[in-house]
């Protein structure tokens, strides 16, 4: 591409966003989509158009997985690589892609048509193995279907026109035409049952904002992202500020491996979500809402835009909502670009400001100083949906469901070794055992509750209950049969945290690498008892000194597996009888000299002289 055309393309893209540096994410997403690459020259030019420095642009480009400074293909394929996909046959699918395309992972075909990469959990663990092909999702892949898809793509079929069975419900809507399935297995009494159209919003219109917050407080609604902070209190903090420019953010960056329930809500209950956000706007006196949609869910964007526009037409979004003069509230969608950390509320705010997705220093908390320093409430998709239902049916109704400290129902994403993976809406307080029976899970040895940052529990704890007072979860429930390798699971989770740490603080950036290294040593059978102490001490340092929730929970897979599966470790750990340093690997150490000397070691290689 000539410089002139490149500059024209960049000029037009930046102009669409008023050359606003804070819309960096949108600019870069468009540039990546259009040029398949954001190289040094493009970064330089974007910087001059947005009035910032090239290094600021580069900081953002290099932070998010879906931006690339080397060319990706016209069709970019991201194969989902998480533990569920690995156990569902990732290797043979990966090989099918490589064979069909004639390239390895991380490469682009010489004609520039295809690129092939791995990406962590794309929110399809109930229909794994799955891949993203440009903007669309191909679930339930097999080596055979992969070859057919690539054949069709090579013949010029657009990814969205690839043959396949359309999903159920709104997945088959003209704006989605997606092969993704909802897999709703259990519909509870709050969100997945029939819900009245804007019933909560209409009741809220007659209430004073403070009364809305009072109802939410009375319902004991706790955030559904996993941490379980009181939603009413959060809103109260935001309204207690002097600053009247306030923001309502919806966290639709569902990135915890193994969870996909927000995907189903965004598909089947988008009106309820937006209704809940609108009620929040009224409650805290905000005119601006934002839905931060994870990059992997970009296929849902036209659908959500459509729902937003339909609501504006109906008068339940935009100006004078519901005929209430002066009640103005509108929402824009901010796309993410592949960064798990952006599910952390302050990292999400950074991303929306056009920055790398790094958490912010707290205090101040976002409710006091969030988006551009203004009070911002960030709630999960599921939380906002519940808000709308509470305002319709009342706090007492909601409070009566669930347990004493965990009101309401919870959407669980159950996946792994079960016959009925999918979304289950169940009251808080349900036991893990009940979930296993419901989902057709047999001969299970371990359940990961709450994703990698949660707890890996063993059979003796299957009577524990899903609720804040016992086993909290943002929604991810991964079940593992007794044939599964516990340490492979732990190793994968650590790899995930190493890849997804933002790198801002020392313990999370470096410590997780060390944890993974030592688990690798144990898996190889080289470990000694001191390695167990090492893992515990290192975990303690990472948890205690990390700046945000990622590092404060990333050692959990290690600690909970040590706690609940001690025999797995003791089977692999041996006393160091010869006294040699088990951390020193002579074979690794020799690699470089072998390479330089171009022959093998006389002492350490039995095949010396053979090559």
């Amino acid at each position: 591409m000539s410089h002139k055309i490149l500059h024209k393309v960049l000029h037009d893209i930046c102009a669409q966003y008023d050359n606003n540096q804070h819309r960096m994410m949108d600019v870069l997403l468009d540039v990546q989509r259009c040029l398949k690459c954001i190289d040094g020259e493009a970064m330089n030019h974007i910087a001059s158009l947005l009035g910032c420095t090239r290094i600021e642009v580069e900081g953002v480009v290099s932070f998010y997985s879906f931006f690339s400074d080397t060319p990706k293909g016209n069709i970019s394929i991201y194969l989902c690589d998480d533990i569920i996909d690995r156990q569902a046959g990732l290797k043979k699918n990966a090989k099918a892609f490589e064979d069909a395309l004639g390239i390895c992972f991380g490469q682009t075909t010489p004609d520039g048509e295809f690129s092939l990469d791995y990406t962590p959990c794309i929110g399809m663990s109930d229909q794994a193995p799955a891949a993203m092909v440009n903007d669309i999702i191909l679930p339930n892949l097999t080596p055979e279907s992969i070859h057919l898809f690539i054949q069709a793509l090579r013949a010029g079929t657009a990814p969205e026109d690839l043959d396949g069975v359309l999903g159920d419900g709104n997945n088959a809507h003209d704006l989605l035409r997606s092969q993704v399935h909802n897999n709703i297995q259990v519909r509870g009494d709050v969100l997945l049952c029939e819900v009245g159209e804007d019933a909560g919003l209409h009741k809220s219109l007659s209430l004073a904002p403070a009364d809305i917050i009072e109802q939410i407080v009375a319902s004991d609604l706790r955030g559904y992202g996993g941490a379980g902070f009181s939603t009413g209190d959060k809103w109260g903090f935001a309204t207690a500020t002097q600053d009247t420019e306030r923001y309502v953010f919806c966290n639709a960056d569902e990135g915890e491996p193994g969870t996909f329930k927000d995907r189903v809500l965004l598909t089947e209950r988008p009106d309820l979500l937006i209704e809940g956000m609108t009620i929040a706007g009224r409650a805290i006196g905000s005119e601006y809402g934002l839905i931060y949609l994870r990059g992997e869910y970009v296929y849902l964007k036209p659908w959500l835009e459509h729902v937003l526009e339909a609501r504006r037409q109906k008068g339940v979004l935009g100006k004078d909502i519901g005929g209430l003069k002066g009640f103005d509230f509108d929402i824009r969608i901010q796309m993410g670009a592949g960064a798990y950390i952006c599910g952390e509320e302050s990292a999400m705010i950074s991303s929306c400001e056009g920055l790398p997705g790094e958490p912010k220093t707290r205090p101040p908390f976002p409710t006091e100083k969030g988006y551009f320093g203004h009070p911002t409430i960030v709630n999960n998709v599921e939380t906002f949906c519940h808000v709308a239902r509470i305002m319709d049916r009342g706090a007492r109704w909601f409070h009566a469901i669930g347990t004493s400290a965990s009101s309401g129902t919870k959407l669980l994403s159950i996946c792994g070794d079960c016959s009925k993976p999918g979304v289950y809406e169940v009251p808080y307080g349900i036991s893990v055992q009940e979930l296993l029976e419901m989902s057709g899970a047999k001969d299970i040895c371990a359940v990961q509750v709450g994703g990698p940052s949660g707890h890996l529990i063993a059979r003796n704890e299957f009577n524990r209950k899903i609720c804040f007072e016992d086993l909290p979860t943002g929604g991810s429930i991964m079940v593992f049969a007794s044939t599964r390798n516990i340490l492979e699971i732990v190793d994968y989770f650590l790899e995930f945290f190493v890849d997804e740490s933002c790198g801002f603080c020392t313990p999370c950036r470096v410590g997780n690498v060390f944890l993974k290294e030592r688990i690798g040593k144990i898996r190889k059978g080289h470990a000694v008892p001191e390695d167990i102490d090492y893992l515990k001490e290192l975990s303690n340092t990472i948890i205690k000194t990390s700046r945000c929730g990622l590092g404060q929970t990333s050692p959990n897979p290690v600690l909970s597996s040590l706690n609940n599966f001690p025999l797995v470790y003791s089977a692999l750990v041996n006393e160091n009888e010869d006294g040699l340093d088990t951390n020193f690997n002579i074979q690794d150490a020799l690699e470089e000299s072998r390479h330089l000397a171009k022959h093998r070691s006389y002492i350490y290689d039995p095949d010396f002289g053979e090559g």
Partner: protein
Amino acid sequence: MSTAKTLTFTIDGKTIQAAPGQTIMQAADEAGFYIPRLCDIEGLRHQGSCRVCTVKVNGRTTSSCTQPAEQDQIVESETEEVLNLRRDLVRMLFHEGNHLCPICEASGNCELQAMAYRLNITQPTKFPYQQPVRSLDASHPDIALDTNRCIRCGRCIRASQDVDGKGVFGYVGRGVHRSVGVNGDNLADTNVDITDKAIAPETCPVGCIIRKGVGFTVPIGEREFDLMIIGADIEGKSDD
């Protein structure tokens, strides 16, 4: 300090006075109580990324360079538990990069090295050495960057942005790949100048930013931390 010191709290039992808005570290500094730190330096905005200044506040760990001082806080700093956390963090920084003190020009002036001595880390530690392959940027006539020694403290980034008003440096990458990049293809491609605050000897705590042609002007053995333990200047201060 112009604002009145209306707050009092304790660090390791010692009563400290603080003005509203001050961080725990600022108040401690003024009271002559040194809390170890690497990414924080007077005159630059607080970042809280190295975590070496970790303290326990009312039983919870946090970074003292960003945590506001509050009335009646109970802060623990020099306890064995907190010291061990700091030791692990300093070790991590050593093992993450390539820090070869005997051949480094910054030896004796290096805050990382000095911090290790202060915390009694005097030998290789339990962590694996990462031995990363990192680049050397010698493109600029006056300045070289040996990123093997960079500890990602970001002091040069903040100095260039906030003091010099230039933005020569910035973070790039994520996770363990996070590093300090320059605003161009290399340093010579930027508007950096030897007189920038970002390049000043006190800005880079280690030997990453190198001023060409001025090495070894002070002999080893007579350098800053050869003569005093790091933090002794603050510990010499008194609030009264």
